[in-house]
């Protein structure tokens, strides 16, 4: 049997020296789709239909069908509309958009142009997390190249079509990856999520209809328009079309980004990443970024990496951020660190999250310090259950899921840290 290999759709080939240049991108068919659309004035519905048929789903975590999302925009409404790219990649374990922006910025630009055209938006914004300085520089340089080549601006290729694109840097706040917090931040405010409805498609950036997509999602669009919906959907599996970049980190021999067909067995992905570090045994995997439920070794080893496969083992694909933990890992320490993160990053707007994340963190710290009680274990679950579903945005759920799943699968490790007199 041949060893599993990558199929690179959003990332450039491994051997490319300067893949971020316009010249390199064009050589591989880059901007062909955009030029064809400009030349033929392709009906907007046709692009949206192609994306629907391709099976592309949002790569930022929620997995919502991209074509359907674009179709929610009020296409006939007059006035300004916006397309926004969410490059505020901040979920612990996720580092794919950084590489897309560093190595393939033009594909994001072309994807935003095509999506913008499909929804009738003449302006786009790419919100890039503040710490991503090098990726931002590459994206800015690509914008200049694209403008000079007449691929962005007004009267594109002699048509009436205009599309202008700007980047905006974030300044360090996990919550801004939440789409409505991102919009607040884009407008120059604190990044606190908005109530929905109204949804961004009705009232988005600067009060105008807006669609927000993840970087990897937008980067997937040009090859789909160029090669066709069937090409893309045939790469993946039923209900999960195309390739997916998995960011593999933690206890593996070769951490990094691996772009592979959706539906790859986890064991193949683990093999690609060089297997568990130092030949140790696998203990557990967080398959989609630190917020998704943890999966024990025996379950994940039989699992496929796609929306349905991970759902069947009680977890989620999330952003495809695979955190691998070997047999030496202390699950109480890991959960303490995860809980601290959500406590630190809660925006403070909703009481269950603002207060509850602190309770969770302090209780886990107490248990790890050998000062916990058995009542704390039940209280942990109770607090997590009362945060989940009771906040404006999903950060509350993100704080609850790790606690619930670590306790479900590794309760014995928490119990072992509770002093004996308590155990009686």
């Amino acid at each position, binding site marked *: 049997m041949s060893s599993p290999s990558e199929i690179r759709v959003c990332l450039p080939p491994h051997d490319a020296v300067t893949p971020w240049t316009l010249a390199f991108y064009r050589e591989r068919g880059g901007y062909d789709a955009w030029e064809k659309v400009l030349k033929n004035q392709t009906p907007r519905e046709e692009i949206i239909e192609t994306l629907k048929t391709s099976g592309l789903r949002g790569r930022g975590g929620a997995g919502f069908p991209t074509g359907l999302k674009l179709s929610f925009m009020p296409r006939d409404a007059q006035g*300004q509309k916006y397309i926004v790219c969410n490059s505020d*990649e*901040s*979920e*612990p*374990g*996720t*580092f794919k*958009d*950084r590489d897309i922006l560093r190595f393939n910025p033009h594909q994001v630009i072309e994807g935003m142009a095509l999506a913008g055209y499909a929804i009738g938006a003449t302006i786009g914004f790419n919100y890039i*997390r*503040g*710490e*991503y*300085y*090098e990726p931002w520089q590459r994206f800015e340089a690509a914008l200049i190249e694209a403008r000079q080549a007449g691929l962005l601006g007004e009267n594109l290729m002699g048509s009436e079509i205009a599309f202008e694109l*700007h980047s*905006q*840097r*974030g*300044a*360090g*706040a*996990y919550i801004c990856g939440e789409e409505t917090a991102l919009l607040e*931040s*884009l*407008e*120059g*405010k*604190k*990044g606190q999520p908005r109530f929905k409805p109204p949804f961004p498609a009705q009232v988005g950036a*600067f009060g105008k209809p807006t669609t927000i997509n993840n970087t990897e999602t937008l980067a997937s669009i040009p090859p789909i328009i160029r090669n066709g919906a069937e090409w893309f959907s045939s790469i993946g599996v039923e209900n999960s079309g195309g390739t997916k970049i998995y*960011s*593999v*980190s*933690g*206890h593996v021999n070769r*951490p*990094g*980004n691996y772009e592979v067909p959706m539906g790859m067995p986890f064991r193949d992905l683990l093999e690609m990443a060089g297997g568990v570090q130092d030949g140790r045994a696998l203990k557990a995997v*967080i398959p989609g970024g*630190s917020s998704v439920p943890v999966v024990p070794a025996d379950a994940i080893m039989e699992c496929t990496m796609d929306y349905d496969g991970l759902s069947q083992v009680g977890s989620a694909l999330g952003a495809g*951020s695979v*955190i691998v*933990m070997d047999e030496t*890992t202390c699950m109480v*320490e*890991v959960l303490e*660190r*995860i809980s601290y*993160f959500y406590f*630190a*990053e809660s925006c403070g707007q909703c009481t269950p999250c603002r207060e509850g994340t602190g309770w969770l963190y302090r209780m886990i710290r107490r248990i790890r310090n050998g000062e916990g009680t058995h009542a704390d274990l039940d209280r942990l679950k109770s607090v997590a259950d009362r945060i989940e579903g009771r906040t404006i945005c999903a950060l509350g759920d993100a704080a609850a899921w790790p606690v619930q799943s670590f306790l479900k699968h590794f309760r014995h490790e928490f119990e072992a840290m509770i002093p004996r007199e308590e155990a009686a």
Partner: protein
Amino acid sequence: MEQTGTILTEAIIQKIEAEAGKYPTRRAAVKSALRYAQAEFGWISEGVVKAVAEVLGLERIEVFEVATFYDMFYTRPVGKFPVRVCTNVSCLLRGADGIMEALCQRLGVEEGETTADGRFTVFAAECLGACGGAPMMAVGDDYHEDLKADELDNVLAGYQ
């Protein structure tokens, strides 16, 4: 005493105006304005907040709440190069604790403190999105990945 006139240089004001031109509201340029000012002054003082508010036509509180909400803005003086060591899960699993300990020892500071020469302030950071190169840290705008405790001197030597 209130200062009269702006403390922002003409060059900074021009950069802020260029940024403001991208958006339908001037407020949208506030993070960029704060970033430019911080690069000049090292941190966001009350004077910077006032000056940015004036340039963008905002209330001071609208600038101040942004300056305090985001991690990358410093509302107290910090070293010339903030050093942010990622301590989140993926880095934790690959030895971030040892990196933090070695760094603090090497610089003679505790977490959150600034070196005597004013070059570095050490911070424990949340995930910086470079988990494939864990353990990692950011020095100023630069990422340093696959860190080893005994190579920290080489990294720091690049920042004078």
